[in-house]
């Protein structure tokens, strides 16, 4: 048509030519300021890793000249193959355990008439507040030599052999799998909740039985979400440090992350060049995996067909299988919550680690609790951790608020800022630790070994998580609400402060609590960055466990977990249940 042919061409050559004559407005200033701040925070870790991996490190720790030695050493290391296989096996099977267990549980609780559902939620909330190390040490005790299982086995059979050695790849897989199952439960329960029950009803009406319906409709519909979640858990398991450090290293089962840790902590001087080369390879691997994850998770919403509000999908009647469902919910409650807590309680009440036998009861005392509560050290641990958590969550959420807003509203330049803020996602904790260790050692500021070093590293590490909350939150706020503020005479920053920020406050709170909760239990970064004058809870617990001070560890851990469970409950009630789904 002629109308279309003589359309002016100006629009195609706009942006570039026009930018120069537009005034420097508020949003533009904000984009530039954010780009600078994020650039300073996010770029150095990647740059320093790359530089160091290619530089010769002299014995006196100075850097000089270029080299490929570190990469050569990495790729020619005879143990690399074994480590790699360990890492992949560990990640793959712990993902399977977490998904099978957490996923089944989520389906049972959300979509069937299983009883005791409250127990599943209770388990999840408490596990969100409990540091991983505490869990791992509790399970290590339970499954360990002097734990109740092996103890019962020895009593029954009279041998001195153990039934089960947790310091093995199998032990690592089971423990990591159970560690992740609450999160899988949390995320998949929201997937199952949003499933459209009409489609299942339609299958039943067409004559399919429960199992057939679940297999050909429910599971198929949830497949994109499950696939994305599986890859996510897999990536996290590749990056995992707690279980490999506490379980794998004593059992001589090395994985990639513990290898990096060893090259820093167990060689003198720290082999920074090698650790950097190692880290760069890990970064690239995680970046590739995350790329696929991004593709998968974009598909994840494809089959979600939520329509009405306050809509509750109908539930399957399990019939004669109902007790099996009940049993699984109770099993989860026991294995993920009750047993570890009982083990910790047992340990905390005894002066030294001993098997769970009635004879131990006579020696019960509150001495460990008394020590923990009166000790300056534990108070410092708690206060340091709280400060670091609060600072990281607050600074992170402020940056996330600006970035998420600019990005969701597609302001000019926002995509670049968004990519900067998302970049830390590719850093496994231990790699982030290595990078910041080298940064803080080379900047002329007295920051290394202080809690501020940790606060900065955590802010960077968890920024992407905060960003998911704010970005998704802003998208849910109608653009017209913001335009109405502009038309009423509000500047962009006034709109942000008076309209967007108040409406976003639930997402901001959820994001804040999420960062706070994970920052206060993080070990991988802290183990490299926290110095003698800046101990934090996770590192303190790790030291206690390694030093065999199980009693104090348990007493302190129980108190700490109780406090954090309160925070986690707020998170849960503030809508973290739904918001968490968008968090990764």
């Amino acid at each position, binding site marked *: 048509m002629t109308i279309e042919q003589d359309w002016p061409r100006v629009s195609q050559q706009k942006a570039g030519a026009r930018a120069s004559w537009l005034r420097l407005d508020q949003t533009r200033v904000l984009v530039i300021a954010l780009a600078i701040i994020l650039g300073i925070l996010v770029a150095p870790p990647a740059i320093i890793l790359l530089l160091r991996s290619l530089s010769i490190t002299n014995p006196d720790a100075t850097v000089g000249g270029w080299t490929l030695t570190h990469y050569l050493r990495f790729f020619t290391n005879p143990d690399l193959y074994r480590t790699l296989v360990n890492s992949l096996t560990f990640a793959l099977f712990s993902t399977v355990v977490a998904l099978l267990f957490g996923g089944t549980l989520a389906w049972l609780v959300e979509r069937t008439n299983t009883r005791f559902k409250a127990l599943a939620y209770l388990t999840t909330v408490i596990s969100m507040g409990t540091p991983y190390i505490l869990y791992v040490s509790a399970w290590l005790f339970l499954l360990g030599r002097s734990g109740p299982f092996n103890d019962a086995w020895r009593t029954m059979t009279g041998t001195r052999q153990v039934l089960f050695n947790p310091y093995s790849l199998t032990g690592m897989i089971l423990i990591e799998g159970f560690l992740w199952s609450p999160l899988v439960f949390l995320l998949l329960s929201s997937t199952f909740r949003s499933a459209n029950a009409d489609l299942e009803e339609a299958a039943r009406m067409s004559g399919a039985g429960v199992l057939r319906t679940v297999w050909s409709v429910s599971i198929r519909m949830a497949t994109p979400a499950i696939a994305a979640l599986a890859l996510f858990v897999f990536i996290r398991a590749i990056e995992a440090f707690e279980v490999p450090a506490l379980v794998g290293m004593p059992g001589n089962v090395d994985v990639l992350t513990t290898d990096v840790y060893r090259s820093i902590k167990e060689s003198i001087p720290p082999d920074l060049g090698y650790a950097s080369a190692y880290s760069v390879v890990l970064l690239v691997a995680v970046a590739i995996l995350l790329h696929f994850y991004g593709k998968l998770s974009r598909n994840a919403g494809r089959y979600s067909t939520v329509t009405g509000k306050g809509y509750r999908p109908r539930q399957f009647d399990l019939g004669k299988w109902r007790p099996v469902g009940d049993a699984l919910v109770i099993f989860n409650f026991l294995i993920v919550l009750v047993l570890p807590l009982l083990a910790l309680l047992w340990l905390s009440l005894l002066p030294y680690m001993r098997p769970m036998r009635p004879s131990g009861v006579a020696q019960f005392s509150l001495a460990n609790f008394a020590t923990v509560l009166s000790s300056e050290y534990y108070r410092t641990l708690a206060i340091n951790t709280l400060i670091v958590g609060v600072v990281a969550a607050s600074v992170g959420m402020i940056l996330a608020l600006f970035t998420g807003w600019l990005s969701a509203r597609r302001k000019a330049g926002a995509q670049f800022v968004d990519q900067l803020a998302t970049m830390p996602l590719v850093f496994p904790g231990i790699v982030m630790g290595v990078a910041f260790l080298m940064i803080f050692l080379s900047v002329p500021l007295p920051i290394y070994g202080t809690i501020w070093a940790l606060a900065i590293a955590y802010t960077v590490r968890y920024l992407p998580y905060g960003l998911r909350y704010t970005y998704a939150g802003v998208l849910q706020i109608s653009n017209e609400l913001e335009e109405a503020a502009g038309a009423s005479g509000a500047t962009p920053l006034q709109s942000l402060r008076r309209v967007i920020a108040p*409406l976003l406050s639930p997402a901001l709170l959820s994001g804040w609590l999420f960062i706070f909760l994970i920052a206060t239990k993080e070990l991988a970064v802290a183990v490299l960055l926290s110095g003698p004058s800046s101990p934090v809870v996770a590192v303190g617990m790790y030291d206690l466990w390694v030093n065999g001070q199980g009693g104090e560890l348990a007493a302190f851990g129980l108190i700490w977990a109780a406090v954090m469970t309160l925070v986690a409950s707020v998170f849960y009630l503030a809508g973290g249940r739904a918001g968490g789904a968008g968090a990764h």
Partner: protein
Amino acid sequence: MLKLEKLTKVYPARPGEFAGGIRDADIDLSAGTFFTLLGPSGCGKTTTLRCIAGLETPDSGRIIVGGTPLYDRQAGIAVPLHRRNIGMVFQSYAIWPHMSVFENVAFPMRVSKDRRYSGAEIKTAVGEALDIVGLGGYAQRSATQLSGGQQQRVALARAIVHRPKLLLLDEPLSNLDASLREEMRLELKRLQRELGITAVYVTHDQSEALAMSDVIAVIEKGRMVQVGSPRDIYFSPVNEFVAGFVGHTNILRGRVGADGAGVGPCRSVRLEGGGEIRCRARNGVGPDVAISIRPEDIVLDAGAGPAAAADGTQNVLRGEVTAASFLGNVVHYEIRPENSAQIFRVEAAPATPFDLGSAVTMRFPPEAALAVARG
């Protein structure tokens, strides 16, 4: 009061392809005009409004309000939206749910750049604005407790509280149910006249446009194809699109006969489906034309009709009733003429019903048929 000169903002899907926007819009309105941008969805009416508001930056052209240029590509002027001092009502009302009715309406005064308003001034102004829209006494309600119609009124109060010279309304009635829409239509018009404010109103509902406007601009694919009063637009559409979009009509296609071309007000047009009718023609159209005949201008008679009809002063077509729908005050018929496949829509009074399949005669004077450019 409001002047647009060659205002252009296009969204090309691919180079050279039309995907939306407005092109070369020219308008000059005097103060107090109720001006409507009318067109189907995606035609560019909302883009025009958003350019005036400052929510979009035009590609070229000029926007002048009350003598002050708000946008001028050549002079490099682009006043940001929060400095334009314009009131705007959004399609979704955009009432901030975290604020009370009072705070919603007070917002423009609280963020005012011209001067700081005292609490008392704000209170008075908000009270007046709420009274004007009929929501006196609602100030302390939470915005989320309001019905759709009430939210609409709050949005209106917020748009006029700082006494802007220009009020922009983006399909404000489209989310209301039918009866409320009628009521708000009258209310809006009354309010606009009382305040003496210039209003730019966007709608795709032609009856809204006809009922409320002083001036209507009909937009088709990014072009303002006709600007005029409601009567102009309805009775003298410039082309087939305008005739078909504003009000119901029968469109016939034909060719102006060689004999009648350019002579007198009445032309003879040979129809594509066969037959010939006499009609009015807009200046300069032809030879291929579209003819618009409003359904209410056609008179139906049973059978061959009265003999008087055949005197040659009227167009007469015989046909058969193929559908009828009774609407109470009027009956809509569909008539198939004898020698044509073209179905006619006819509105008739319900007093004398015609049965399905019965033979009827349609007649209409040449003045009721208007030949316009095809579009």
